[in-house]
């Protein structure tokens, strides 16, 4: 890697056993048309670095936006002080952590695609205008956020990594109101459409023309009955499945949670180390992978922020738990295998165990077959509410849009569809997994955990799925 910062890094001095420099340079632009009024453009350029030092068996970090030699050396000295000051009380002896020395590069598809502001505004105006179909539509917006980022990693062991990204996040919503009832419909949720790439992301989700669709569906929800209460089958579409995967598989499998790091804030896990290799997490149909290799998926990369090469791994195979989501440090502390998922959300936070891309592998059922298989149930689409206990077990999720399934047929639209369950048993009720043509590659830019707190990008791909004997209910009539 030939980069101007290479020589600067090599001029820094440190007496630690290992040190690294991680630089993030990220640009973003957000455009929006809300209630048919173009909002002022909002841009950002966020650039800074974290240096990490291992010394005397301890570890410390310092983050700075001063990328001059003096600024970085000052940060390196401060990180060294932290490492030495905490060495005697560290959770692990960092001298025994084998830090990688990876060399390589990564680029998003369309990493250098231009940003055509005027064309974006025209497109957003058209979708906004299409959404105002009735006086009951009281709020509506079409927006997009485009981000480009360069991540660099230099290590004292010779690691040299450069990864360049381009992220596209289009969004649409329409809100309808009548009296004390308000219903909102979005296109795949709040920033649920988030991929690497260019304008082709819109085509994958039918963004053009969707302004009218979300408004139609918001109006339909306004006049719909409440979701019924009872125990029945649910057919979850991908834009709800990703939330189900995220909260009740992703977070409980994070190895730092299992090790207890998150217990003061994000929580612990019902999963314990002894479960790996034998625990039945779900039915035989459940296959879950950590997959950083899908080009368009939101959190694809070649190396994590420790520099560990990233590759696809099964976490759950045929329902049996195989592997946690843990990076190099957690693997060392737990004496378990893991994945390349040590990630920081920006230059000013240290890497911790994160999900990256967590996918549910496709099965063989068509959407029509899944509907036909249900005698009484509810199809639910697009997450709108999420809550789960700190061990990631008892959950309750709500969706924007529901539709009854009666005797194998889709029938009445219902509003406020909610369901609740327990992770440890819910996945065992997985009855059908949709085929590849029901699968969507989605994600979220808002996965939060850590102290100091971090909000990171994660990708999730999932087909539609059917679960049996689920506790379903609606809102207050």
């Amino acid at each position, binding site marked *: 890697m030939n980069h101007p910062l290479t020589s600067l890094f090599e001029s820094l001095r440190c007496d630690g056993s290992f040190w690294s420099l991680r630089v993030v340079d990220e640009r973003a632009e957000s455009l929006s048309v809300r209630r048919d009024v173009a909002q002022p453009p909002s841009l950002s350029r966020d650039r800074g670095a974290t240096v990490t030092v291992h010394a005397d068996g301890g570890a410390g970090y310092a983050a700075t936006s001063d990328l001059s030699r003096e600024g970085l050396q000052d940060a390196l000295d401060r990180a060294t002080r932290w490492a030495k000051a905490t060495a005697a009380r560290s959770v692990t002896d960092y001298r025994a952590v084998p830090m990688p020395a990876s060399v390589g590069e990564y680029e998003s598809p369309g990493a250098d695609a231009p940003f055509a502001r005027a064309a974006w505004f025209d497109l957003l105006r058209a979708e906004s205008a299409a959404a105002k179909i009735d006086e009951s539509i009281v709020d509506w917006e079409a927006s997009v956020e485009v981000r480009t980022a360069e991540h660099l990693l230099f290590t004292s062991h010779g690691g040299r990594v450069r990864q360049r990204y381009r992220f596209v996040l289009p969004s649409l919503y329409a809100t309808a109101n009548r009296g004390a009832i308000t219903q909102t419909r979005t296109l795949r949720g709040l920033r649920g459409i988030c991929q690497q790439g260019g304008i082709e992301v819109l085509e994958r989700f039918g963004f053009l023309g969707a302004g009218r669709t979300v408004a139609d569906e918001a109006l339909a929800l306004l006049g719909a009955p409440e979701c019924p209460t009872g125990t029945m089958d649910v057919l979850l579409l991908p834009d709800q499945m990703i939330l189900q995967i995220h909260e009740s598989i992703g977070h409980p499998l994070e190895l730092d949670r299992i090790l207890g790091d998150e217990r003061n804030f994000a929580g612990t896990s019902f999963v314990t180390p002894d479960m790996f290799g034998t625990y039945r997490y779900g039915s035989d149909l459940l296959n879950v992978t950590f997959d950083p290799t899908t080009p368009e998926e939101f959190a694809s990369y070649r190396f994590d922020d420790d520099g560990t090469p990233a590759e696809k791994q099964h976490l759950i195979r045929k329902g049996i738990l195989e592997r946690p989501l843990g990076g190099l440090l957690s693997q060392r502390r737990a004496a378990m295998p893991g994945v390349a998922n040590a990630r920081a959300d920006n230059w000013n936070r240290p890497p911790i165990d994160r999900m990256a891309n967590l996918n549910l592998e496709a099965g063989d059922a068509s959407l029509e077959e899944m509907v036909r298989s249900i005698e009484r149930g509810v199809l639910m689409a697009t997450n709108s509410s999420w*809550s789960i206990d700190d061990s990631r077990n008892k959950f309750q999720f709500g969706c924007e849009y529901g539709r009854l399934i009666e005797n194998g047929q889709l029938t009445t639209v219902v509003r406020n569809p909610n369901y609740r369950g327990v992770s440890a048993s819910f996945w065992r009720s997985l009855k059908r997994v949709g085929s590849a043509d029901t699968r969507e590659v989605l994600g979220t830019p808002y996965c939060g955990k850590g102290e100091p707190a971090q909000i990171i990008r994660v990708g999730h791909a999932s087909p539609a799925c059917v679960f049996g004997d689920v506790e379903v209910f609606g809102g207050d009539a």
Partner: protein
Amino acid sequence: MSFETHFHETADALTALTQSGEVTTLGYNAERSDFVRFNRGLVRSAGTVTQRYARVHLIRGSRHADMTVTLAGNGEDRALLAATLDELRAVVEGAPEDPFLLYATEVTHTRTVQTAQLPSPEHIVEAVARAAGDTDLVGFYAAGPIVRGFANSLGQRNWHEVESFNLGWSLYHHADKAIQTSYAGDVWRDEEFEARMALAKSQHAALARPPRTVNPGRYRAWLTPAALQELTTMLAWGGFSGRARATRQSPLLRMQTGDASMSPLVTLREHLPGGIAPGFQADGFVRPDTVDLVVKGALGDALVSPRTAKEFSLAPNGASSSESPEALDMAAGTLARDEGLAQLGTGIWVGNLWYLNFSDRAACRVTGMTRFGTFWVEDGAIVAPLSVMRFDDSMFRLLGDRLEGLTAERDFLPSSATWRERAVDSARLPSALVSELTLTL
């Protein structure tokens, strides 16, 4: 260079770069934070973050755009500001006219500075490890200065600097059973910290009893200020927002339509003198000390940002764009906190709630979990820790006809949030006694 000096240098540089026909504003958010994370009484991570963010807003007539950049705090910043302005000029040239632009034109200067006496990081590490002893402590320490600045090319300067520490920790007994405690302020005292740790350890002992699992149903409940804060935070998800009210998306919609009210015991206000948030917002408007949000159970004023004011023809009151409280104050009641167990009698002592969300937003129905320090109580005595339970209930009931009382004592709860930057919002809340809390799972 101090943050304040850097802020003024940046503001002066930006004003000097501003051309005829332009107005520029500067929002300056910076901090130097020591972060130490503990697990099992040992250090999981330790470091320092120094960050300076400048939000540059360029206005030309009714066209405008903004750009947020990281400043280095060195001599390179002037060139960065010039490049940022050049980029914004190109954007504004093609930007649509904005009918809802509103920015401060009346120049008002303010300056508040609160310094602290903070211990060295080494002292914190040793003090926490020593106090933890052989307990399973997991926690987080954040400390250092946080600053917010505003300036514009019209000459306005506003400065807000708060130096503080915030240590939050949980003492785990087994599995998910723990007591959570915090110690925050501007002067660290070892004896105060040790006293709080001793109290936490005494509560921790009650976790040794076998946990009680209760069936779904309705239970009498005592909500500590920390638990009540989780509920009031949900109200702040649009409940006090002028925009959310105007677009019928507020969770308090039924109060707007006259279909619901709260108990006369409930008075909520945004009260800046009681908090640590700045008295100005990103467009340069100086905020009133107090906005009455709920008055004796009736819906009060909304928090109205300048943009919302222009769009919906409302009177602005200096709210930030999020239109959520930054110094929420709930009026005290008459119950005595030290009689809480006796007042509860038999029911659930809720130390903390966790992961709340709306199950029916328009009905202000909220679900969430019990978490730290939650116990089953019989005849005014703690019987056992409670296995975590899910609740799903209407805020109009919990803070309505089921609210039996609020305590005369209130806790000041500074936010420990560190999303992208350390927060400066806070709440001052009593404990609450409710006749029924609906548990569902």
